[in-house]
């Protein structure tokens, strides 16, 4: 299938999925009601459920899915590591620590989001600064720095959980990823940040293609790798931090979606990035719908759903990489 046609198809699929996801949930809204609500009327309670709780959540899932997938694609290229995901440079550990501190201090949702966001950005800044201690800002140096900081922050997080065992379940729940507290407030704040960040990254797709061939090669092709690295890291971190701040740590999306998309559209980032964005959005909207409906009225944290897909995915990669040999 030609790429433009496939792209259009994905857009249609996303729209259909968004509509379908709006219809399901732990509260059954009769189709007639949905029509009334769309036309501006409808029962007050149903209206609140659909437009105030469900729709913003679905939109957030799509936006986060898009953001994480694109960040993942770029980080995989930048670090030259197929196992890279948006969290690999320590953002998840930093954000989790920030959220944990907020939860223990009893600061409420807004506090947790703010703390997680700031902590995430502070962490990536720390990781990049530390990586300058090594030989150049190469992929490996960044990775090592990320792992070092990540491990350290995780240790502090574990300690905090140990001494505040009353809030431990709240912290663990946050870490599993959760869209249940999303309202239009969160969407309004994160949507511009994630959209802008993703768009800017996309503009550097060509440069990323060059960097994947090797830094020296890229430099010879006229790419200012230092600058590109900086911009992509900054945008990727902003997007990921925004996503994590409002929805916790949603794993595997940033890792799996670029790989799966690459299998279908190839490694050219100018094509891979937009397709990953759409695929990521579709995947997360679907996963969120599952999380809301499988054990209603309870919800399965979204991170668990994505991890369930993640396991078999890795096995599949294992299998296909073997046959390639």
């Amino acid at each position: 299938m030609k790429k433009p046609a496939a792209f259009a198809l994905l857009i249609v699929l996303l729209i259909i999925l968004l509509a379908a996801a709006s219809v399901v949930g732990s509260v059954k809204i009769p189709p007639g009601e949905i029509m009334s609500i769309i036309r501006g009327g409808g029962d007050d309670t149903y209206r609140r459920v659909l437009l105030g709780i469900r729709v913003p959540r679905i939109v957030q899932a799509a936006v986060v899915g898009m953001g994480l997938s694109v960040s993942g694609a770029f980080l995989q290229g930048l670090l030259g590591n197929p196992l890279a995901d948006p969290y690999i440079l320590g953002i998840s550990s930093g954000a989790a620590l920030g959220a944990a501190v907020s939860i223990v201090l009893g600061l409420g949702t807004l506090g947790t989001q703010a703390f997680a966001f700031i902590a995430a950005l502070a962490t990536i800044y720390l990781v990049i600064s530390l990586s300058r201690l090594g030989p150049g800002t190469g992929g490996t140096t960044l990775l090592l720095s990320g792992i070092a900081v990540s491990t350290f922050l995780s240790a502090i997080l574990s300690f905090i959980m140990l001494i505040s065992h009353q809030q431990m379940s709240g912290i663990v729940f946050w870490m599993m990823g959760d869209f249940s507290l999303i309202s239009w407030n969160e969407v309004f704040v994160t949507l511009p940040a994630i959209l802008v960040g993703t768009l800017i990254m996309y503009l550097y797709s060509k440069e990323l293609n060059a960097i994947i061939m090797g830094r020296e090669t890229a430099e010879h092709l006229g790419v200012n790798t230092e600058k590109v690295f900086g911009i992509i890291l900054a945008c990727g971190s902003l997007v990921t931090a925004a996503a994590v701040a409002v929805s916790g740590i949603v794993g595997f999306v940033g890792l799996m979606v670029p790989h799966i998309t690459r299998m279908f559209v190839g490694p050219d980032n100018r094509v891979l990035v937009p397709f990953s964005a759409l695929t990521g959005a579709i995947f997360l909207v679907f996963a969120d719908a599952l999380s809301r409906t499988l054990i209603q009225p309870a919800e399965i944290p979204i991170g668990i759903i994505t991890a369930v897909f993640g396991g078999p995915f890795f096995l599949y990669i294992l299998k296909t990489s073997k046959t390639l040999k």
Partner: protein
Amino acid sequence: MKSLRKPFLLLTIVAMAVLLASCFNAAPQPSEKDTGEPAANTGGAFPMVVTDFEGRDVSIEKPPERIVSLAPGITEILFELSLGENVVGVTDYDDYPAEVFSIPKVGDFQGPNMEAIAAQKPDIIFASTLSGKNSMEALQRLGIPVLVLEAKSIDQIYNSIEIIGKITGKTAKGDALIADMKERMADIQERVSAYPRKRVFYIVDTNGNFTAGRGTFIDHLINLAGGENVAADSEGWAQYSMERIAEKNPEVIISAAHAGNMKALYRLPGYSGTDAVKNDRVYVISDDNIISRTSYRIVQGLEEIAKFLHPEAF
């Protein structure tokens, strides 16, 4: 190294034999023999055999003087029956009454510490499933009578007070406590019966939106206090979706003491449109333990909930 093999082998066999022997020679198990009187609480006469809530028959020689309590609810009851001086060991979970803070801790959040317990030389241990199933075996090997009086209902709380009263010779105090509790409970229920039930949602933790569903103590208390737990379609400690909260539209929201920030609640999507938030009927329990701990203070918890639901009745 042939010359070393034989003695080494012999040593290993001897060591294993000693270890195995010590396992079997462990302190005598609590009496499981049928003494001829099924679940006999021989009123006041020692030695007596009591049956704990796990169905185990435990023989009590005389009123215990050194008591270790691994169940905070039991600790509270002991103190209320004027047995505070006999309590020689409590856990990190214990916080009421204030005297418990000066009692040696023999258990933390990970479970009871066998050495610490043994060091206090207790003549009875009140255990609970809080200690974990693995600890039960270890506790019994200490050779000290172990009683599990973990109440799962208010009636069982009365029962546990009765048993404690009997084995400590404080039957009069125990009976008085039970009577007082029953009287207060009846009074509360009568007061609220005049009013229509209010729809209530109970928040255990705002992170993840956990509530107390059907079958929990809190659910039971809400019903007794003249309320209707909207989360009754869930069982036990359950997570509850925002959509359902909006749909169920609780009139009153009660939150656990450590559930999280209540001001933040007013902004959250599912809660913001509810009657409870609109009419500012969001309350916080003063102390989580009065509604979840199996002690006489459960009446206090019921009273608090009833006042939140039907202030006009008091």
